[in-house]
């Protein structure tokens, strides 16, 4: 039965990683911006949801949605003011500036919420266990798996089946040509950036039980989010889903089976994968 525990835990973990990282893969794939500060939006989402639940008595799910909207709005402002000048600069400038944003987020969150992690604010109906036929399993993790799957389906529909998605895919594949056929790539990017930040905020809010919220969140999990994006392939939606689930399952398996190794296993695998496929497992088609 251990294998089911590992799989379910790993998938729940992977779904959180997916919800948070999927916006980043579009950012890095579409505009080639290395955005290290993406996790800060997830952290903000977690904090905002917690404040709304505790101090304003807003129920869990609406609070997560409101936090997502707030993160999306902030993401839009950040895109227009801070990120836009970065597109023309090199990778190093992008890495440094967004690293600076992480520092600012750490300082700001410590100032506002204090240095300690916040307690989970889970509603009653998510606590406890649920019978899944052959055994019982925590409701919260099943909830994460369900939400993650639903979001993945919705995103698949938007990206693969809608006009917006077709434009987005075109812009990822070849931004120059997309512009030439009249797609407003800048607007598209602002919109996806907003969407990605909103998803990150949502993921941070509902995933707080797995990735606890504290001021160093953006720095601590930064590498995990980047791994998901880079292993999956920049700009690849399917890739980031596959990579998020793989990372979740590998990390969980490592913790259950060889706890003395810590994250060592994951890093060895990441290292090997990147050497083998530097463009990720399921890279988006790019013209370059």
């Amino acid at each position, binding site marked *: 039965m251990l294998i089911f525990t590992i799989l379910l835990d790993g998938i729940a973990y992977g779904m959180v990683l997916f919800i948070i990282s999927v916006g980043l893969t579009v950012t890095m794939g579409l505009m080639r911006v290395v955005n290290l500060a993406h996790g800060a939006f997830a952290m903000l989402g977690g904090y905002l949801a917690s404040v709304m639940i505790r101090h304003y008595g807003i129920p869990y799910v609406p609070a997560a949605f409101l936090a997502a909207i707030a993160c999306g709005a902030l993401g839009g402002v950040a895109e227009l003011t801070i990120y836009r000048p970065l597109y023309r600069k090199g990778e*190093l400038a992008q*890495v*440094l500036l967004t*690293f*600076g944003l992480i520092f600012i987020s750490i*300082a700001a969150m*410590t100032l506002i919420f204090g240095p300690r992690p916040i307690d989970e604010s889970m509603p009653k109906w998510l606590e406890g266990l649920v019978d899944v036929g052959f055994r019982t399993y925590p409701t919260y993790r099943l909830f994460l798996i369900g939400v993650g799957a639903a979001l993945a389906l919705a995103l698949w529909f938007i990206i693969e089946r809608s006009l917006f998605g077709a434009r987005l895919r075109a812009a990822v594949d070849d931004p120059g040509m997309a512009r030439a056929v009249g797609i407003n790539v800048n607007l598209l990017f602002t919109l996806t950036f907003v969407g990605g930040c909103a998803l990150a905020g949502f993921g941070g809010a509902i995933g707080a039980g797995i990735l606890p919220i504290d001021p160093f969140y953006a720095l601590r999990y930064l590498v995990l989010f980047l791994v998901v994006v*880079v292993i999956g392939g920049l700009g690849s939606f399917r890739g980031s889903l596959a990579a998020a689930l793989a990372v979740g399952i590998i990390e969980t398996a490592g913790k259950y089976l060889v706890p003395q190794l810590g994250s060592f296993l994951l890093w060895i695998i990441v290292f090997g994968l990147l050497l083998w496929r530097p463009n990720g497992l399921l890279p988006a088609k790019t013209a370059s």
Partner: protein
Amino acid sequence: MNQPITPASTPQLNLPASGLTALRPVDAWHLAPWIIALAFYFLVPPGFHTLGTNVLVMILFTLSLDLALGFAGIITLGHAAFFGVGAYAAGVMVSKLTPDPIMGLLLATALAGVLGALTGMLILHTQGVAMFMLTLAIASIFYEVANQWRSVTGGDDGLTVPRPAALLAYFGFEGFRFDFAGKTAYLYALSVLFVWFLIAWRIVKSPFGRSLDGIRQNPRRMRAIGTPVWWRLVAMYGISCAMAGSAGALQAHAIRLVGLKSLELELSGIVAVMLVLGGERRLYGAFLGAAFYVLVHDWAAAINPFYWMFVVGALLVAVVLFLDGGLMGLLDRIAALFGRKKSGEEQASGDAK
């Protein structure tokens, strides 16, 4: 940049062509950092030398990153891995192998250099995001090794390093004992930094260094004219990692405590901050950036550590958006205001293609 481009200014390093032996009056400022460093030794009250040593160690570490990231264009977010390797190796050697600091320093440097060259051989085939993710992965692997290998590294308790033997004990001279005030450690760090600086200077002025300049700007063209691009990058990366290892070893000998912090992503980020703050590809940028960072950090973190994080973050954003070339670039612009044109100006911006 809106500065007038004079025909005489070729994109050269802002260093005299003839080396230290033939100082023209204009170049006398090359002595300034060393004069300041020595003056610091003699003038500050006891108790401040450890802070000075910290500055010197960070200058050396930043200088190592300048070689890899600045000159060779290897974007790494894992340079702390080699700083940490040097620190742990030097620390372990004092207690288990030989108390002689110079022997420990040389071995730690060699180990970091070899590890750097070996991992460089693997990762320098890749480019861009994949490459910097690989440097992150290597740093994380080293971190996990240090974290789990408790018998050697002490895990998250850190490693307390015994006091090394006197500096030149190997040669039978017992005069430079490591004292409590850290004065010997300061001179030790300053000497090592000076040697490494001369090596770095020689490298960036050599044809080898110039070829890396070309590789950074256009690897394809360099390959087309017959440069062994990958080997050059591996060599430079190895040298840079050895230098980072030296910095780590110095810290282990001087501060005598090695912790997991010396392998963390945060340190890799901070050293990049120091480099960009000072100005890349300038060698002296490492001096300005690291000194500024460590001294202001020491002052501001005493008030409130999170206030400092805010300052660092805002500084980074400001430097990237508004201050190309960092503090060295700023000095250039101030010098230009006073009519003293320096040849290195286009260097900072001239390779944006």
